[in-house]
């Protein structure tokens, strides 16, 4: 069986739906990962041990196991404890938590890396702990964490492909649906790869703009 890409345009609407759901998944999971990352980092750094230790264990556990395994755990685990969620929600929660953990690690390291003298200087000038954190530590940490957070976001976009195993009609699963009608896996997977590549280029361009802006506030 030779290759015939002419069937692909006929199924353009499948792929379009796939692109839309991949975007929805990525954006929702990225928001969850961003705010979850901040929350986990704050807990690990500043919360009492009773809260910090379980969080640290969770971070360690989620950094050491594959995303795919975590997706199965969340999808089937939630329904076992009586919470029946649609695959899309399970996918967002799974992707979001997985990357929240990686973001937390980046944010924690970024805050710790700010020279302690900065905080001491701010405190001795009469700023409160909160003021020092808000006006002295955070602005410096933001610059150092922006590039690695951007890299995590790029990884998240690519890893959103894994949510296809739960049956969410994102780009990979949408391609599978088109393949089940046409029996042309090569053509559709290559097309899907090209679309991911385009999305990735767009995201990278956006991140570069953000990084330039963060740099400019120096």
């Amino acid at each position, binding site marked *: 069986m030779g290759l015939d890409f002419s069937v692909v345009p006929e199924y353009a609407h499948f792929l379009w739906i796939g692109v839309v759901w991949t975007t929805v998944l990525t954006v929702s999971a990225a928001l969850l990962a961003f705010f979850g990352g901040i929350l986990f980092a704050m807990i690990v750094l500043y919360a009492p041990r009773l809260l910090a230790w379980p969080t640290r264990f969770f971070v360690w556990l989620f950094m050491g196991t594959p995303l*795919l395994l975590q997706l199965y755990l969340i999808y*089937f685990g939630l329904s076992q404890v009586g919470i029946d969620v649609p695959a899309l929600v399970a996918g967002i929660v799974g992707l979001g938590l997985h990357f929240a953990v990686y973001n937390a690690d980046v944010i924690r390291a970024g805050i710790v890396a700010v020279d302690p003298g900065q905080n001491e200087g701010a405190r001795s000038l009469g700023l409160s702990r909160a003021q020092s954190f808000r006006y002295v530590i955070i602005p410096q940490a933001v610059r150092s964490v922006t590039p690695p957070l951007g890299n995590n976001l790029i990884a998240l976009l690519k890893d959103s492909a894994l949510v296809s195993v739960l049956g969410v009609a994102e780009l990979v699963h949408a391609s599978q649906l088109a393949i089940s009608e046409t029996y042309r*896996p090569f053509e559709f*997977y290559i097309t899907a790869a090209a679309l991911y590549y385009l999305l*990735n280029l767009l995201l990278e361009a956006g991140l570069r703009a953000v990084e330039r802006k963060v740099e400019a506030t120096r």
Partner: protein
Amino acid sequence: MDLDLMIKVTPFFVEAAWVTVQISVLSLVLGLAMGALGAWARLGRSRPLRVLGGAYVSLFRGTPCLIQLFVLYFGGPQVGINLDPFTAGVIGLGVNIGAYMTESIRGAILAVERGQTEAARSLGLSRGQAMRRIVLPQAARLMIRPLGVNSVALIKGSALVSTISVVELTYTAQRFIGSTYKPFEMFAIAAVLYMAIIYGAIRCVQWLDARHAID
């Protein structure tokens, strides 16, 4: 926690973990070879090779590894490539991580101070000799950690081959979750085994790192 069930299924998980180790080690070897080749192409003097190396890195890092596996395993037969799941998994993972390793190796080589090459060249060493005898031994030390990070990512990424029906750790966990409806128990067993494999890999990297430390 259903401990009896966990004890009953653990042997299957251990067997599957061994498959995960095999896949990871084989694709690590392939990835290192691809990485060395990619870095050589990207740093060389031939423009077509540099472009080719750049395209390899950009395409394989710019698309999901899952799609790359699917193109190879499901699309391969259309272009005359028929691979069993295990082989397709090793090749897919290895070529994918090779793109990341290309950048790790290239970064380490570029991080060696320029003056080292210049001094070697001015002492009469050829380009190749300067690279082999002066730059690479110094770069080798610098690439241990980034390649270690790539390797740990590879072990976790090896879970993807469960989607092309290689019976490894994640495949086994997923199967048992489906048949027993005990997701937490099955996750716990798989997590312990993944952690053990990753811990072993990290210890190897640390050992290499300590052995090649400058002082």
